[in-house]
């Protein structure tokens, strides 16, 4: 069986600057896969290309075996890939509820309300203040809403770009627990994290991106044990 998502020899440039160079990796259905790498390694660029906001200069992205790298972003979401972007990117002048409704924009089934309740159960602060403007929430609360919003489209593949950014250790743990739960519910996860230790511990597979290319790959726990990873990303050695 082909992987759920396959990125093959992907290169992406901003004008003359090549931000991603010949990256390849794949995500099997049901797995949690992490991309780790230093600042500016090209992780965000990779996710933005998968979700259709950027066009690759070379290479391809296959989702369920079909090329998607020429599709529009809204079509890619509709086909089952949700992207919780770096820096949250909430609609700050809209309420919590409206942000969640926008997450479910492409759905027209009857389960939307129940899924919204699920987000409120997961993050009670959102439920209590569902009529408040998203822009008024704290950074951590906004991150919860961003994740909740991405869940609302019921994606096959959920891409999270630094979901623990700006969160307290307790909230970070809560987010990682949530990611595990989502996996148990059948959602496949592609995770980008600065917090390499926590991310790899959680992941079925990890890829290290360095200066735009994939340099190391392996099961999450193996990468955690790798001397080079420990030296570069866990501040050891």
């Amino acid at each position, binding site marked *: 069986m082909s992987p759920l998502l396959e990125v093959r020899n992907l290169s992406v440039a901003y004008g003359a600057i090549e931000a991603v160079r010949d990256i390849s990796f794949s995500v099997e259905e049901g797995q949690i896969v992490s991309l780790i790498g230093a600042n500016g390694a090209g992780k965000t660029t990779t996710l933005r290309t998968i*979700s*259709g*906001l950027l066009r690759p200069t070379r290479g391809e992205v296959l989702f369920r075996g079909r090329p998607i790298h020429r599709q*529009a*972003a*809204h079509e890619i*979401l*509709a086909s089952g890939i*949700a*992207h919780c*972007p770096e*820096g949250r*990117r909430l*609609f*700050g*002048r*809209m309420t919590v509820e*409206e942000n969640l*409704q*926008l*997450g479910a*924009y*492409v759905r027209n089934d009857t389960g939307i309300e129940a899924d919204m309740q699920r987000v409120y159960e997961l993050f009670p602060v959102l439920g209590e203040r569902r009529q408040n403007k998203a*822009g008024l929430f704290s950074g951590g609360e906004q991150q919860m809403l961003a994740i909740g*919003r991405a869940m609302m*489209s019921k994606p096959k593949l959920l891409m999270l770009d630094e979901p623990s950014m700006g969160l307290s250790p307790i909230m970070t743990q809560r987010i990682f627990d949530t990611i595990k739960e989502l996996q148990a519910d059948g959602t496949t996860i592609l995770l980008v994290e600065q917090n390499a230790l926590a991310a790899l511990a959680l992941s079925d597979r990890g890829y290290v991106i360095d200066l735009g290319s994939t340099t190391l790959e392996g099961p999450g726990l193996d990468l955690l044990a790798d001397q080079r990873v420990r030296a570069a990303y866990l501040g050891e050695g």
Partner: protein
Amino acid sequence: MTTLLQQLVYGLILGGTVGLIALGYTMVYGIVQLINFAHGEIFMVGAFGALATFTWVIPEGVKGTWYITLPLMVIAGAVVSMVIALIIERLAYKPLRNAPRLAPLITALGVSVALKEAVRIWYPGATAPLPFPKEFLTGSIELGSILIPKTGLLIIVVAVVLTVLLQVYINTSRMGRAMRATAQDPDTARLMGINPDRTIVLTFAIGAVLAGVAGVLYGVHINNISIDIGFQNGIFAFTAAVLGGIGSIRGAVIGGFVIGLVKTIAGQYFPGGTQYDYVWIFVVLIAVLVFRPQGLFGETERVRA
């Protein structure tokens, strides 16, 4: 006192027209950051579309029956305005979606000249002002000593009702949410599965329908139209949108009423009279912008990445 009240009535009538046009400026700016200078001409073609319908489509026998004629003309004006606006969006603006801002702006100016000239050349008799039918809705309502023309009252009521409906639509409907999301953060809106082309087309369409309706009601009220009405009212409407805070629905309409009132009051009471009423509109605009650069109801900051 009577004169003042009477002028206030005229101010509100002008304000209703200007406000309806201003909605299109403000909505389009909100979603694509384009000052659509051709929008005044969309108002003008709406009026001409309705006149053409009256002249050549509506049968003689029912021309005098206002409750048939007027709705038909309003619908015709709205449709003509919308179709032309969508053609312009598709052919002139969409290819420039990612171009530097100046390109679509200059294009809009060119489109506005082209539209005006097209009507001048192809609409029979449009080289001079044309009479606009009025027989079916005449007379005034007397309120004490002041007179409210029925056509004027219609403009005010329609402007207020359409603005309220638009607000409700944008604030509560799914497409309204999509429009707001696209205006706030286009990339993230796409990540929600929103097709930006569709929301942009819808925005242009709504703005054009409102301008077309305004054009028809303006014609019915003033009783003649010319190819110049778009420029003049378009400038007022653009000013109203900036005054109210560009991007704000309620600001555009309130800005429209403010401009209507300033123009009529200044024309009556200020030195220079109607010769200088334009000047006072811009004096008010500048005075407001000095203290509130974002306009009366504008957002203080536009968070855009």
